[in-house]
């Protein structure tokens, strides 16, 4: 690397290898290789399956269900191999000389580079965010269709199979293709910058982990095209409904979860190793920004918990396709076993979908209130407390499931206790606001919207944790209201806060503040009008996951549907703002929010390898209001090193 090139984000590459010519273009990693290599993998999958069935004498040799299941693995593998996801490792594995790293797959020179295997965490972060917003819009449209059907009792637009498919795919996409990977995208972009690293620890793994996502997303979506219709057992996919009473579309969900889960695990491992080993000199754990802490904790949750949902979906798939009996009660299977395994992942998953949001809120609130985060150490420790407690509360989803009755009270107590560290975080944000100099730019509006909505979601969580109330409200619209206050008012608001906050850093341009504020208010009002009335519906007696309901709920449902269309429309403002500002927005300064953390101390967008000089971290990241305080200094700028402020 030469010093000259480092300052221009687009100039640091070694010259790309000479482009292949003639038929060799078909052999080089990339989209030209996709058609034939995918077909090849399809053929291999089909061949092996038919061969085994023929040898075993199983009729028919070509079985649609089995073939679909095999191809949901083989075809994506072919696609990943074709675009070059495995080239480096394959060369290494077969012992042929690996190509020297020329960084040609690093950084983006044009929009085309976003559609290739790219090893730059900043490119990958943007790939993640654009992809997840695409699926967010699709999943939102599915919700609009659901609300259209629910506007009146009786059946109007869709049949039962399609309706059940709508809410199942809506939830699956929102969870596995939006909230979880959107946080991974923001983390991908920001974490290496925040800790003063040139990239993630495993850039090739990082590239691969992104490309698993579109596979998972399109797999779940394409279940609408499967014979018999989409998977319609809810995103929770309870067996035996999901394992023995579903069309082949259910397998698209089982396998889609595997791809999304594998992506999550790879990213989490990458985050963990990056955060543990690649922090800049002086960046002790107690000097890490809270977003880094949050992603560290989240990644631990992901690597420990995600294998459980992978297992649960494999078992269901085996029951469905291979006629095993894991959850088939007529042959000794145990239906409640599914729920235990599923929730052992899916409760921690709630924190996987929330802790990174806590991190974003901490960054935004501290910077925009111009005050140090209140009780930094307790904020970090409460994340760890949630991590540990998060594994001890799964059965609160099962208070009415018929599990061992004695398990309910202990699970209630742990669920209640988890409110304590969560409360610590909320009160600390409030104390950070206190006596600050608060700037109400769009990220701050979303952060404050998050705190207030999350408090409501947390309080309704107390109702659901109390066993007698849960027995009444479980599986009703009260639960629908609760999860949307937590995942929409919580996770989604912080994702928006994060996107607006780092938009100038990612694109080098400023978003339109007026449109941003308009977006916030439309979302905030539309969200409350849509979801608050659902509390009442549920307590009064409307169960969730129904297309038809008692006539006495008709008026309120019509109201909710209209509000939800307004809420959906607010997303148009967001997308217009993003697209317009990315192209034509005013050029952003390197540090428009006057933040102290490291990502703001480099240009916008940052150089390809992030830091021209390795930063020296000399203090905590939130020393607002401390005269002359610095979080980090760069070489040749060590005058402030002696004023290092001790962590309280």
């Amino acid at each position, binding site marked *: 690397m030469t010093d000259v090139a480092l300052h221009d984000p687009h100039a640091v590459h070694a010259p790309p290898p000479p482009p292949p010519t003639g038929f060799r273009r078909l052999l080089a990693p990339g989209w030209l290789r996709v058609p034939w290599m995918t077909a090849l993998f399809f053929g291999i999958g089909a061949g092996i399956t038919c061969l085994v069935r023929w040898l075993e004498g199983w009729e028919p040799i070509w079985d649609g269900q089995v073939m679909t299941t095999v191809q949901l693995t083989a075809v994506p593998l072919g696609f990943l191999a074709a675009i070059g996801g495995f080239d480096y490792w394959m060369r290494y594995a077969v012992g042929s000389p690996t190509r020297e790293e020329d960084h040609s797959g690093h950084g983006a020179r044009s929009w085309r580079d976003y559609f290739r295997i790219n090893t730059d965490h900043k490119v990958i972060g943007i790939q993640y965010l654009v992809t997840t917003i695409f699926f967010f819009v699709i999943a939102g449209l599915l919700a609009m269709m659901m609300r259209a059907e629910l506007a009146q009792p009786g059946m109007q637009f869709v049949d039962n199979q399609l309706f059940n498919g709508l809410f199942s795919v809506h939830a699956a996409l929102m969870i596995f293709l939006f909230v979880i990977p959107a946080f991974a995208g923001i983390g991908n972009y920001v974490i290496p910058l925040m800790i003063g690293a040139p990239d993630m620890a495993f850039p090739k793994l990082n590239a691969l982990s992104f490309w698993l996502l579109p596979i998972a997303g399109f797999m779940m979506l394409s279940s609408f095209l499967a014979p018999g219709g989409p998977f319609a057992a809810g995103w929770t996919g309870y067996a*035996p409904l999901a394992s023995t009473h579903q069309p082949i579309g259910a397998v698209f969900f089982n396998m889609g979860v595997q791809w999304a889960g594998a992506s999550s695990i790879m990213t989490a491992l990458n985050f963990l190793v990056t955060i543990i080993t690649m922090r800049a000199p002086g960046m002790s754990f107690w000097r890490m920004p809270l977003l880094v802490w949050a992603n560290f904790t989240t990644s631990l949750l992901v690597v420990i918990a995600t294998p459980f949902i992978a297992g649960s979906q494999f078992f269901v798939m085996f029951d469905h396709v291979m006629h095993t009996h894991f959850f088939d009660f007529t042959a000794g299977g145990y239906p409640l076993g599914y729920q235990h395994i599923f929730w052992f992942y899916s409760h921690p998953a709630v924190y996987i979908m929330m802790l990174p949001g806590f991190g974003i809120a901490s960054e935004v609130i501290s910077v925009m209130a111009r005050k140090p985060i209140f009780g930094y150490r307790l904020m970090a420790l409460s994340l760890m407390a949630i991590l540990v407690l998060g594994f001890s509360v799964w059965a609160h989803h099962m208070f*009415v499931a018929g599990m061992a009755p004695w398990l309910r009270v202990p699970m209630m107590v742990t669920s*209640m206790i988890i409110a304590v560290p969560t409360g610590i975080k909320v009160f600390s944000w409030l104390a950070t606001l206190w006596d600050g100099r608060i700037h109400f730019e769009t990220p701050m509006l979303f952060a*404050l919207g998050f705190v207030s909505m999350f408090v409501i979601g947390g309080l309704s969580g107390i109702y659901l944790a*109390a066993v*007698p109330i849960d027995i009444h409200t479980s599986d009703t619209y009260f639960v629908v209201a609760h999860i949307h206050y937590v995942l929409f008012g919580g996770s989604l608001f912080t994702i928006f806060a994060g996107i607006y906050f780092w938009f100038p850093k990612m694109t080098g341009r400023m978003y339109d503040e007026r449109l941003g504020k308009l977006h916030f208010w439309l979302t905030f009002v539309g969200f409350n009008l849509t979801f608050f009335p659902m509390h009442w519906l549920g*307590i009064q007696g409307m*169960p969730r996951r129904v297309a038809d309901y008692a006539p006495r709920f008709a008026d309120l449902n019509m109201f909710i549907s209209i509000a939800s269309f307004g809420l959906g429309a607010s997303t148009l403002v967001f997308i217009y703002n993003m697209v317009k500002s990315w192209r034509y927005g005013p050029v952003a300064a390197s540090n428009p929010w006057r933040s102290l953390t490291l990502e703001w101390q480099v240009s916008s967008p940052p150089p390809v390898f992030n830091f021209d000089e390795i930063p020296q971290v000399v203090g905590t990241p939130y020393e607002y209001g401390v005269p002359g305080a610095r979080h980090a200094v760069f070489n040749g700028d060590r005058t402030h090193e002696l004023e290092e402020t001790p962590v309280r």
Partner: protein
Amino acid sequence: MRRGSVVQLVAIGAVCGAGAALVALLIPWMPHAASEQAGRIDLVFWFVTAICIAIFALVAAVILYAIVKFRAQPGEDADGPPIHGNTGLEIAWTAVPAVLVTAISIVSAVVLAKNEHIPHASAASSDRLTPLVVKVTAQQFAWSFEYPGFGKLTSATLKLPINVTTKLRITSLDVTHSFWVPEFGQKEDAVPGLETTLVITPDRQGTFPVICTELCGLGHAVMRSSAQVMTSQRFLSWAKGQQKQLGSSSGGASGKAVFTNNGCASCHTFTPAGSKGTVGPDLDKLAQEAQRAGKPLQEFIRESIVDPNAYVEPGFQKGIMPATFSSLPKAQLAALVAFLAGGKK
């Protein structure tokens, strides 16, 4: 913190708390309870609500106060005071919520224990009502209720005597369902291969909906029945009447009894059985439907019961009617077909 700001803060908090309290009190949140259990659940609900209103008011007050008072002036680039924390405050907001959730847990645990308490029948009494046991069987997409204390008595709707502790023994024949009567406040899943229990002591007469709350397939939204609470005398005479009907017709093989006991009435209209369901096709018009399917009436009816998807009446969907009726005993199936075929008369 100055004294004035404390007063203002408390004032905002009081307004927010009052607003939340009005929302809580003016809107009828909980259904009108019809069981002792629901009454106790109400108690927990209001206990939690009181605590939640207090927390909500506190948070809202601080946020609103901060938004108004600590707003940066346009163009102001000063920082706030570098306050890093306050050990006393941090201990307080760890300890106070811990105490509150402990209190909620204790109240909940006590109520849970009371709600599941079944009074023991005194040894002398052979009363079939202490407690009354009802076997609840769920299947796609119907409920059936069996009263083991009353011979083979089975009903498609739940009848309960008032002020009698009833123990429901719940199971499912196919997938997971969930039994819920909002007015009773009690809910429990029906799990295939397991028997779960639920205790209900009705204390108000009336008819309430029985709702399946666990997604169980295409007909989930229509998997409804009703629960009727009546006086003990009326309950006993109802049970006696039903038993008599059963006894008179060779072990329950009367077509009408088969129709009622298997929950057909919850989905189908059929005048001879007095049913008015509209989920499935109208069985008063079976003759025309058989014509459309191009099959003789008897054969059409038998096929439609045993293999419901063979022919689906236009305007209805495949896969809603359970296929489980193929396992009906032969005699019962024959009686049911005869009953339905003779329906027009």
